[in-house]
C-alpha cells in the first residue's frame, strides 16, 4: 500500500465539499477537511489553507462555534441567582459565572446582580471553556474585556472576521483613521462601532465582508474610504503627508 503523496491544490484555492485536496498519508487533514481511504477531501465550500503538512479549508459561510480563548461580543439575555446567560451569536448560549464576572467578593443575598450586568447589556468578553457538548463558559478576567456602552452593533460572517481585522489589525486601523470610529470586532462575527461616522465604518465593514475572498481588498477599501471619508483633524495629517 505504498502510495506517493501529492498535494492537488494551491493556497487560497476555492474548493467544494468532496473535492480531493491531497492524496497519500504524508498530508494531514486540518479543520474543514476529512480523510477518506488515503485521500484528504474538503468538507466545506471555502478556501484552502496550508501549513506544513496540514491541509485545511476556511469556510466562506457558516455559524460561529465557540473556542476557548476567543474574544467575542455578547449580549446578556438572562440573569440568574449566580450567573448570567449570554447570546454569543451562535447556536449555543454561554454562561458567565459570578466568580468570572468580578474579582471582588459579592454577597448574593444582599447584592442585586443587575448592578454588574443587566439584561440587554453588550460586553466584549473572553470564552473560558467549551465542553464537548458545547456547554460554553465565559470570563471577564481579561485585560480587553469590558462593557460596550452606546454605539451600534452589526453582524458579519464569523469566518470573515480575520479579514476585517486585517494583518496585525491593519484593516481596523484603516477604518479608524478615515472614520474616527471606535471599532471592536468579536471572533463571533459581531462588530461594535461608536463614533461620528458610524455609517461609513459600517459600509466599509460590509464591503470587506462581501469581498473578503477577492484579492486586492485593502486597496479597494482604502479607495472607498478616501472617496467618502472625512478624516478627523488629527488623523488628517498623515493622509496629507502620504499624498505629498
Amino acid at each position: 500500500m505504498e502510495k506517493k503523496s501529492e498535494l492537488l491544490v494551491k493556497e487560497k484555492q476555492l474548493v467544494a465539499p468532496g473535492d480531493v485536496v491531497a492524496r497519500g498519508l504524508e498530508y494531514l487533514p486540518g479543520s474543514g477537511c476529512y480523510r477518506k481511504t488515503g485521500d484528504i477531501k474538503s468538507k466545506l465550500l471555502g478556501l484552502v489553507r496550508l501549513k506544513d503538512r496540514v491541509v485545511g479549508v476556511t469556510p466562506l459561510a457558516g455559524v460561529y462555534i465557540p473556542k476557548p480563548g476567543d474574544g467575542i461580543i455578547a449580549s446578556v439575555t438572562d440573569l440568574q441567582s449566580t450567573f448570567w446567560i449570554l447570546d454569543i451569536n451562535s447556536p449555543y448560549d454561554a454562561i458567565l459565572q459570578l466568580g468570572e464576572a468580578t474579582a471582588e467578593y459579592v454577597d448574593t443575598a444582599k447584592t442585586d446582580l443587575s448592578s454588574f450586568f443587566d439584561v440587554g447589556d453588550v460586553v466584549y468578553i473572553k470564552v473560558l471553556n467549551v465542553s464537548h457538548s458545547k456547554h460554553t463558559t465565559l470570563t471577564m478576567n481579561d485585560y480587553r474585556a469590558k462593557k460596550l456602552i452606546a454605539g451600534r452593533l452589526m453582524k458579519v460572517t464569523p469566518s470573515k472576521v480575520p479579514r476585517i481585522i486585517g494583518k496585525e489589525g491593519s484593516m481596523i486601523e484603516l477604518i479608524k483613521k478615515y472614520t474616527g470610529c471606535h471599532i471592536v470586532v468579536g471572533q463571533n462575527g459581531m462588530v461594535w462601532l461608536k463614533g461620528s461616522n458610524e455609517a461609513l465604518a459600517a459600509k466599509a465593514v460590509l464591503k470587506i465582508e462581501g469581498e473578503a475572498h477577492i484579492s486586492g481588498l485593502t486597496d479597494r477599501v482604502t479607495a472607498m474610504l478616501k472617496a467618502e471619508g472625512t478624516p478627523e483633524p488629527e488623523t488628517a495629517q498623515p493622509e496629507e503627508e502620504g499624498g505629498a
Partner: protein
Amino acid sequence: MAKAGAPEKLIIHGKRLDGRKLDEFRPMKAEVGVIPRSEGSATFSFGETKALAGVQGPRPMHPKGLQEPTRTKLRCYYFMAPFATSERGRPGRSRRSTEISMVVAEALSNVIFLEDYPKTALDIFMEILQANASTRCAALNAASMALADAGIPMRDIVSSVSVGKADGEIVLDVAGAEDNFGDVDLAVATVGGGDAFVLLQMDGIITMEEFKKMLEIAKHGCATVYAQQKAALMKRYTAEVSE
C-alpha cells in the same frame, strides 16, 4: 394498462415526445446564493421542474427535549407551491410531501457531518415552484447545494436523477407524459457522482436486467448533475472576481 388521455406512443423513431433522445436530460439550470436572507440557498431545475431550497441553521433546537445530545437534528421540509401544477394544489403539508421530506432527509443525513453541531437543529426548506416530474430529484439537488452554500460540513454533494421506462425503452430524466403514462419511474441519488446510492425509490414492474441497466444509466446521469452542481457552487464565488 392504458389510462385515459394517454398518448398513443411515448417514443417515436427513437425520440421522445419532447424531442429528446432516450438518454438526454432536459436543460438543467443551477444557481447558488439566491436568497441573501437565508444562510444558504440554491435553485435547481430540470426543464420545467424548478426547485428552490433554503437552509437555516445550525440553530438552537426547541423544544429542548427533542434535541439530540451528540448531533444536529436534520429537519427537511418539502413543499409544492399551489401554482406549481396545472391544477391548483392544496397548499401546505400532504402525505406526499411528508414522504419526500423524509427520504430527502435520509439521503442528506448520509453526507452531512451531523456530529459537528451537537444539540442544534438544521432546517432545509425546499419549495417546488413548477412541477413537471422529478421534483424530488430537483429538490434534493437544490438542497445539497444550499447546504454547501450555508457552510455546512459535508462529505460530498448529493446528486439525483430519475430514470423511467416508457414504451419498453429506458429513458433518463422522466418528464411529462412519461411520468403519467410510463411504466416505471425510478428516483436515484448518489454521493459525489460516484457509486454510493442514498435514494432509491421506484414504482412499476420491471425485470432484474432492466433494473440493473436503469441503475447504470442513473449513475451516469447523477455524475452529469454533480458536474453542474459543482460548477454552480464555484460560480458563486468566482463570478464576482471578474467584475
